[in-house]
């Protein structure tokens, strides 16, 4: 293990404090490593202003537009969400929810009626002042019959949306304590109203830290600092140029030759070589993205929880992270809730235990089990390899796993949620409720295990309207335990966000809710 990894691990475990780390590092002559672990904030406490940042993103397309309802990938997320616009709320780099264009908010005790106080003195890039009307029209932009926005289902429970002076009052058909989280979604950026209930997205005017000056879809965007930005201590660069470079080799070349300062999505096969470059710093952040093996719990033999447990005990998660993710990930614990998700509970880690697997197999009366596992690389990069690895691990528990390689084309419509046991990936959601109600609540469209657990579903509905944080935390802890022990999904690993930047750049602790520091790198980073 390198000095850097060792220090990061100690710091993460709370074994050493930041001060010790710096002291220790000085003694070891490893100041660089300490800087990297601490994201340099300990060394350069106050961010510098200025400089022209160039970023290479491995996404983007000529079909991109400035309409946030069409944002799909990390390119427009960085440009539109990270640079041009603000939302009502923001998930900060520590995973905490803070107000952005909403100064504060209040909910009725049943979490049905929400009042958001809109920040005063904020102006759009076109000079217009921010009003409640802008907020209402920006939210309505995603609602209505003709909306094609992916945020539409999130906002569907809203029954009324009214201005009350400087406040916006939202009424929901059923309570939801996570509403402020939902409003931090990258689609729901606030745009100036054009006065007739519509918004002006074409001009790109927002309230964000950067003003868009040139937008060539699929090629580049050029943004200049907003001199009147309301947020203090953010948006440090004079200008930001964001290039779309899909080819990972071209992206890496651009970084190593100094054409760009920051890139996302390193090639995991060669990132250890890139690490040797002294001018490059790799970031490796555990986010919410996870790879899963869902089982159809409404079908034999997966309707038996002991059989499911046997399968959960018969996979070596560490080896999977090492071999499939080449170490750039974290072992999963059979729940979809990542450390970066709100209400993550640190439960006891399930380990690879062939004996326990045999025990549960016997209890299920399925000794000498032979079972099919369908996989294709469409599910996630390396899914077929992961399935083969699973087969090797399960063999030690006396389970014969038949790996079936499925075609990539039509995987999501013909295999996933159709075959008994398959491979799948989830991008993850920032809150536990959001994740659970997307894929674990009984009867929802993406419940890919057809899992129906009475107690879990009751808790889910109750926790959604519970405004007492401590009680809610307990409820989500219990739900995660239920999913881990009785759910229909094997979650062997969380895949990291791995990117690279020039050592000229500095940043604070990185957010884990999205890649690229929560897509806010352009707002949060600075030149050291």
């Amino acid at each position, binding site marked *: 293990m390198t000095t850097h990894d060792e220090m990061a691990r100690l710091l993460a475990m709370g074994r050493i404090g930041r001060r010790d780390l710096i002291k220790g590092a000085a003694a070891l002559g490893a100041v660089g490593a300490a800087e990297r672990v601490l994201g340099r904030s300990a060394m350069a406490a106050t961010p510098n202003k200025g400089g022209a940042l160039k970023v290479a993103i491995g996404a983007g397309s*000529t079909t991109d537009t400035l309409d946030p309802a069409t944002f799909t990938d990390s390119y427009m997320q960085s440009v539109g969400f990270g640079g041009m616009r603000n939302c009502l709320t923001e998930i900060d780099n520590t995973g905490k929810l803070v107000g952005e264009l909403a100064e504060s908010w209040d909910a009725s005790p049943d979490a049905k009626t929400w009042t958001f106080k809109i920040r005063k003195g904020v102006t759009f890039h076109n000079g217009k002042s921010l009003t409640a009307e802008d907020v209402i029209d920006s939210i309505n932009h995603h609602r209505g019959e003709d909306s094609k926005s992916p945020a539409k289902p999130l906002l569907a429970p809203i029954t009324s949306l009214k201005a009350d002076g400087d406040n916006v009052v939202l009424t929901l058909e059923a309570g939801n304590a996570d509403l402020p989280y939902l409003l931090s979604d990258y689609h729901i950026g606030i745009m100036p109203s054009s006065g007739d209930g519509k918004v002006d997205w074409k001009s790109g005017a927002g309230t964000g830290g950067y003003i868009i000056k040139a937008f060539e879809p699929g090629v580049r965007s050029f943004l200049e600092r907003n001199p009147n930005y309301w947020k203090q201590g953010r948006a440090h660069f004079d200008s930001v140029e964001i290039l779309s470079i899909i080819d990972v080799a071209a992206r890496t070349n651009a970084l190593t030759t100094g054409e760009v300062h920051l890139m996302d999505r390193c090639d995991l096969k060669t990132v250890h070589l890139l690490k040797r470059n002294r001018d490059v710093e790799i970031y490796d952040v555990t986010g919410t993205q996870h790879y899963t093996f869902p089982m159809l719990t409404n079908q034999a033999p997966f309707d038996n929880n002991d059989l499911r447990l046997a399968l959960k005990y018969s996979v070596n998660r560490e080896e999977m992270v090492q071999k499939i993710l080449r170490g750039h990930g974290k072992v999963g614990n059979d729940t979809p809730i990542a450390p970066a998700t709100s209400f993550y509970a640190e439960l006891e880690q399930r380990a690879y235990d062939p004996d326990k697997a045999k025990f549960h197999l016997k209890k299920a009366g399925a000794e000498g089990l032979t079972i099919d596992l369908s996989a294709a690389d469409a599910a996630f990069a390396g899914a077929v390899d992961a399935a083969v690895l699973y087969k090797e691990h399960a063999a030690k528990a006396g389970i014969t796993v038949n790996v079936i390689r499925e075609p990539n084309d039509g995987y999501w419509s013909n295999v996933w949620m159709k075959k008994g046991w398959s491979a799948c990936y989830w991008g993850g959601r920032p809150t536990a409720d959001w994740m659970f109600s997307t894929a674990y609540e009984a009867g929802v469209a993406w419940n890919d295990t057809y899992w129906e657990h009475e107690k879990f579903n009751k808790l889910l509905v109750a926790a959604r309207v519970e405004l007492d944080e401590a009680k809610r935390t307990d409820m989500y802890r219990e739900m995660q335990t239920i999913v881990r022990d009785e759910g229909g999904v094997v979650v062997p690993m969380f895949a990291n966000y791995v990117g690279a930047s020039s050592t000229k750049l500095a940043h604070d602790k990185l957010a884990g809710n999205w890649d690229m520091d929560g897509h806010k790198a352009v707002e949060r980073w600075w030149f050291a």
Partner: protein
Amino acid sequence: MGAILSMVAQRLALGLLTLFVVSLIIFLSVEMLPGDITQAILGQGATPETVAAFRRELGLDVPAHLRYIAWLGDIVQGDLGRSLASKREITELIAVRLWNTLFLAGLAAAIAVPLAVALGILAALFRNGWFDRGINLVTLSSISFPEFFIAYALIFLFAVQWGWFPSIVNVTPDTPFWERVYRCILPAVTLTLVTTAHMMRMTRAAIINLMASPYIEMARLKGLTRSRIILMHALPNALSPIINVIAINLAYLVVGVVLVEVVFVYPGLGQLMVDSVSKRDIPVVQAACLIFACTYILLNLLADILSIISNPRLLHPR
């Protein structure tokens, strides 16, 4: 001269017919691809509701043949339409990309054509000598490698190792001319390396072919030098096949350089088209294909005209 004009008119008419057939084929093949633009754009967020709303908005609920006829009607009036995805005017979308593509093709041609013809003449002059063999070896090797390999090799040497040229071509419409030339050098050299062999070999072969003709023998008997024979007597008669090969290579430089564009992140027409195909943005694909088809038709026409002008026997048929 009248013969040329009537040929040009005839060719242009045939070209229009070709364009029509091309557009029909493109429309049908994109139509046949699984999925449509609404699913491609919405991705995971594609619920039946949002897809239906999007289709209504784009007018994709209209049957395909009606959409094609409407599009054809607009094209005849010179209106390329709007992109389905971004709703931008396609002329505006394509203009910048087309200029980029033509610039790179022009730069590559400006290096490759004189180089190839000169090398071809020299190779013919020193036929079977060490120069001839050496230049054949080099150009044939470079054409045998895939172009992305050559591109990566050049990037490794000139951008990563020595840092002389940028590894990606980041140009905007405001980039000054010489700055643009400098930034485009590596892709232009890549294209030069993959096109030179073809043109060089054709020049050499055409000249050598003529060297066996009686009039060349006559010239030799008159005591002319070898270089004078090749330049003044053989080359003018060899122009016709050379021009045709150059035309084919120029067309390739315009339409066939997607891989080079990807490696150097060059914002050309090829990338626009690949993007549009993957997003099923039919009007943009159609427009790009029409431009590519036009390039082929016009360059071939130009090659034929130049061949005729360079050949008195064709210029003044009996």
